[in-house]
């Protein structure tokens, strides 16, 4: 029975180690969040919340708008790629190569993607900095994430779903569209959250694409005008870039305070977004799994 005693003791010790590690990281996260938010609030002045040249309201709006635009590109394309890889691509060299390419894409340094975006979407097109090219650049970075989660989710579906659907006279596409994709949705949503999180915080890829200036006239709703908030072809500095710009260029005496406050706002934005998306995912999952 000595071996049993020992196994139990090791078991207890391991449990404690895991609890300690998890606890350490939770504490670290909380401390970090409190620090960032606390310093943001410490330097807060009401004007910072305004939607003017001095406040960060415009940057906040740009950030959200850019995320929406980027997801508009990367979600359909990423899901389509994932579905293709899981369902249509014949396993073989080409598919394998394609998968490697997609994985590589996600680990490209974002500054490289930013320069690529600058060359292709700005220089070659002959445009000025604009939100769409920023959205396209970050899409390059987060498309792989969405594609991979979609592919993995599709491949993890029980064979019975496919058999059941085909057995009722569904085509391959009907099976994907009506059974497999809906069943994968909670997992795909997780991929989208991660992808969106990346856009919220991205700076380097946006430097030379979405640009570092923002000039919005909130009473101008002519979408073709460069100062209309909703014009996707206007330059749009995001919060992350604003933090970087305030910190490096210190154009204003209180640049540090602005940077701190922007950081706090960005953090809260990301938290709110991922909590919201997770609640939605949880609800979807519960609906699929079926409460009694």
């Amino acid at each position, binding site marked *: 029975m000595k071996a049993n005693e020992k196994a139990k003791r090791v078991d207890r010790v391991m449990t404690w180690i895991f609890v300690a590690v998890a606890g350490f990281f939770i504490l670290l996260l909380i401390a970090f969040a409190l620090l960032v938010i606390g310093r943001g609030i410490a330097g807060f002045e009401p004007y910072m919340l305004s939607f003017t040249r001095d406040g960060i309201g415009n940057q906040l709006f740009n950030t959200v708008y850019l995320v929406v635009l980027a997801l508009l590109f990367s979600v359909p394309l990423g899901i389509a790629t994932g579905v293709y890889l899981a369902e249509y691509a014949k396993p073989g060299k080409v598919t394998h190569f394609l998968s490697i390419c997609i994985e590589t894409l996600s680990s490209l340094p974002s500054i490289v993607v930013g320069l690529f975006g600058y060359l292709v979407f700005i220089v070659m097109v002959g445009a000025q900095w604009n939100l769409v090219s920023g959205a396209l650049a970050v899409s390059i970075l987060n498309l792989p994430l969405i594609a991979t989660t979609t592919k993995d989710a599709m491949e993890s579906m029980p064979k019975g779903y496919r058999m*059941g659907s*085909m057995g009722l*006279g569904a085509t391959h596409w009907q099976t994907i569209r009506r059974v497999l994709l809906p069943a994968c949705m909670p997992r795909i949503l997780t991929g989208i959250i991660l992808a969106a999180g990346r856009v919220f915080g991205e700076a380097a890829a946006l430097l030379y694409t979405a640009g570092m200036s923002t000039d919005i006239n909130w009473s101008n709703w002519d979408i073709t005008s460069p100062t209309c908030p909703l014009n996707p072809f206007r330059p749009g500095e995001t919060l992350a870039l604003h933090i970087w710009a305030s910190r490096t260029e210190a154009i204003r005496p209180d640049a540090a305070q602005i940077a701190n406050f922007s950081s706090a706002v960005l953090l809260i934005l990301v938290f709110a977004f991922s909590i919201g998306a997770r609640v939605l995912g949880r609800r979807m999952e519960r609906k699929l*799994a*079926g409460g009694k």
Partner: protein
Amino acid sequence: MESKFEVSKLNLHYGQFHALKDVSLSILPHEVTALIGPSGCGKSTFLKTLNRMNDLEEGVVIDGDVLLDGKDVYKEMDAISLRQRVGMVFQQPNPFPKSIYENVAYGPKLQGIRSKVKLDEIVENALRGAAIWDEVKDRLKKSALGLSGGQQQRLCIARALAAGPDVLLMDEPTSALDPISTSKIEELCTELKKDYTIVMVTHNMQQAARISDRTAFFLLGEVIEYSDTDQMFSMPKDKRTEDYITGRFG
């Protein structure tokens, strides 16, 4: 009686492996036909040739005739409409992660039925047909994954019925279920054969004896004996059949 399925000289290869050898069987309408035999003898493979589910596997080569009401299912019918006429119930209950209602309405919707009234009617009839209506009528909008295994299997039968088939193929439909659910499904089969033709794979000799009208004994891809269930279980013609049903091997 005209046979429902007329299978003759059916050979099936998985790549190099010869899984069905010269199988010839007539399956009669409004009967339960049981397929028995040791594991790996080709029962599931045979069942899947009847609604062309084998088409989904790689490297399957089929040769011979499978006629459904006189029409060759491989040459004169497309797989989609064939599968609407020949429904399938699997060994593991496999409801979709959707509501009970959506599971049953799946087949009719594929066939383009959109009218809510029509769908409601089809769903109710199918659930009644599968003897599960009373248990689920108050929770049609709830996920099918919340049902018990036996309920899920009857739901899958309902889902197959809703697509409007005239044949039901069942591959060991009760092997994952408890005795009570099993006997419910057996009763159901006896009920359903009034309207449908049923072909069922089973590993349970008593089950085959209880509910089937005719039994085919498979061994290593061949049909050794095919006859009236009563006759097969009382006086099998082949020594190997006798050994199998008396439990001496398999």
